């Protein structure tokens, strides 16, 4: 069986600085992988390289997404193939209504996949339903995307997008940052609803706290741009107790 995501020896740099240093990672359908690591280990870089953010140079290795060369695709193509990055800091886009954005994104993906576009009322119906589950005020959908939203609202909005777009692989970049415990619970519930046998997830986090709510199957420690240890969910608890110092030494 082809892995959902297969990263082999990935090396990447930005502005001449090497960040990813021969990273290997395989994620199968139905699995949730947590990637933990100290600041500067390359966690966000990994999420950006996977989603195709400009500015990163790939200097080695390869990434296969359902067997296809992910790195050869434009960001929009990756999204249409089913890759979704939940941003650590979702961007504000003044002048673009949230609902317009959601409809444009959904239909752009459907078009690219050769599926029929959905009508505005159909999109609205789906979005309303998901908004309700995530405790999002329907009025918010009329407002410009993320403009004036609180940290919690932004993360709930990311989760709403993820639920609407039904990706094959979700990459959650520090989803817990800036969230209080109530907001964290709502977002985690939203993510857990998306757990499915045909869907994989990579949960990137600095703290173990998020993993109390989104329980992973596999936990990896990322340090200096490589996976330095892999274990079960108990590894997260161990890290919480001992910190990252030992792995930083190991990588160096």
């Amino acid at each position: 069986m082809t892995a959902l995501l297969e990263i082999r020896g990935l090396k990447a740099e930005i502005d001449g600085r090497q960040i990813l240093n021969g990273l290997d990672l395989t994620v199968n359908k139905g699995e949730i992988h947590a990637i933990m690591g100290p600041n500067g280990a390359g966690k966000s870089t990994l999420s950006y390289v996977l989603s195709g953010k400009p500015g990163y140079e790939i200097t080695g290795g390869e990434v296969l997404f359902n067997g296809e060369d992910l790195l050869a695709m434009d960001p929009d193509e990756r999204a249409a193939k089913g890759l979704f990055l939940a941003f650590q800091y979702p961007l504000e886009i003044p002048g673009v209504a949230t609902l317009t954005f959601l409809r444009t994104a959904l239909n752009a993906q459907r078009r690219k996949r050769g599926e029929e576009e959905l009508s505005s009322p159909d999109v609205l119906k789906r979005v309303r339903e998901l908004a309700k589950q995530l405790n999002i005020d329907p009025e918010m959908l009329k407002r410009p995307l993320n403009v004036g939203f609180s940290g919690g609202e932004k993360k709930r909005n990311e989760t709403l997008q993820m639920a609407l777009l039904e990706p094959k692989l979700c990459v959650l970049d520090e989803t817990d940052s800036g969230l209080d415990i109530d907001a964290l619970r709502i977002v985690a519930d939203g993510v857990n609803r998306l757990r499915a046998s045909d869907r994989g997830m990579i949960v990137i986090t600095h703290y173990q706290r998020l993993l109390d709510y989104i329980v992973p199957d596999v936990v990896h420690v990322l340090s200096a741009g490589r996976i330095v240890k892999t274990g079960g969910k108990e590894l997260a608890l161990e890290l919480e107790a001992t910190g990252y110092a030992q792995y930083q030494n190991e990588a160096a």
Partner: protein
Amino acid sequence: MNAEIRPVKTAAEIGFADLFAAVRLSLPGGRDIEAVRRDAFDRFVAQGLPNSRVEAWKYTDLRRLVRDAKALAPRPDADAWTAARNAGAVFAGLDLRRLLIVDGAFVPELSDLAGLESGVRIRATAEALSADEMVLPLEMAGTDPAAALNTALAADGVVITVAADVAVERPIHLVFVTTGTVPAAMFTRSRLELGSGAALTLVETHEGPDQSDYQVNAALQINIADKARLDHIKITGEGTAALHIATLEASIGAGADYREFGFAAGGAVVRNQIFLKLAGEGTTASVHQASLLSGRQHADTTLVLDHVAAGSQSREVFKAVVDDEARAVFQGRITVRPGAQQTDARMMARALLLSDEAVANCKPELEIFADDVQCGHGTTTGALDDQLKFYLMARGIPEKEAEALLIQAFIGEVIDAVVREDLREALSRAMFAWLKGRE
């Protein structure tokens, strides 16, 4: 030393002098009007075509940009009528009272003059001039050389009057269209007199054939009496090689409300100069402008706004999207007179540059002679935000569509200022068409 050095006349300046000499006596109006024309032409001659050393024309050097003076367009014939019939299509399907000005001449036969609302009067400017009505002198733009040229040579246009307290439901659409293959010059003068408490929506579109370097010099004088309300929407379409110079002056009475909206996407060289006088107390005025420029287009919007009386409010938002090697110019000067206490004036100019060669020049000015006022201005110039673009693309939106969405968001704020939904939607469609053209 006070001697002014007068540069050698350009071919175009000599051409305008020859043109004026040739047509002066055949233009409509009796002796008094001819005197007004001569006086205006003298003012033009004294200044010549403005160049970049003239502050008001700093970024639009007509000495360089206007190479020759074209002959006046002939009166529209049957072919011109046929070509003009479907003009103003940007508002097709909307219930507007269409008045056609073809090659500079008002054509009643092509215009919708049936069932005029009581209190509304529409005439050709040529008719008013022939009756020796003093419709030519300009109040605020009088010394401007381009406006002076218009006063000297204006032959026709439309004169509209709306009686006091008449609210005209159906918008009036001035359809300016240039036809024909021989590039010519059109000098039009139009006038709107809005009685106290009256209300009107006036729409203006300008268009003509591509690749023809015809010259349009249009002026519109508006007088808004106390408590009247005017929405004015102007679309500068025009062909790809056209020169379009337009002067708008409006005097706005006490408690009146004036909303100006401009959309500029056509023409090779465009200058929209707007002179506003908030003459009475408690007046509100707003000017919103969207320019969408590409190729080597040059579009200049220059606003001179005068707060004369107390307690008035003005809002100006100018936005330009500039692609390729195009240039957008915005100059805005707000003056607050000593008597204009409690003035609330705000002006913002933003330019979005889509290519490395695109240029935007912004020059906002405030002159405040009253001490109890709130005034502010700001300008920004920048490119599309790559981070925002990536965010949209990461959600599956292709690059060009992501850019279009961001451009639309940028311009949307200005288009939202149009009150009537049907007109707003037509303008949105015009914006989409421009964005489609980029793909």
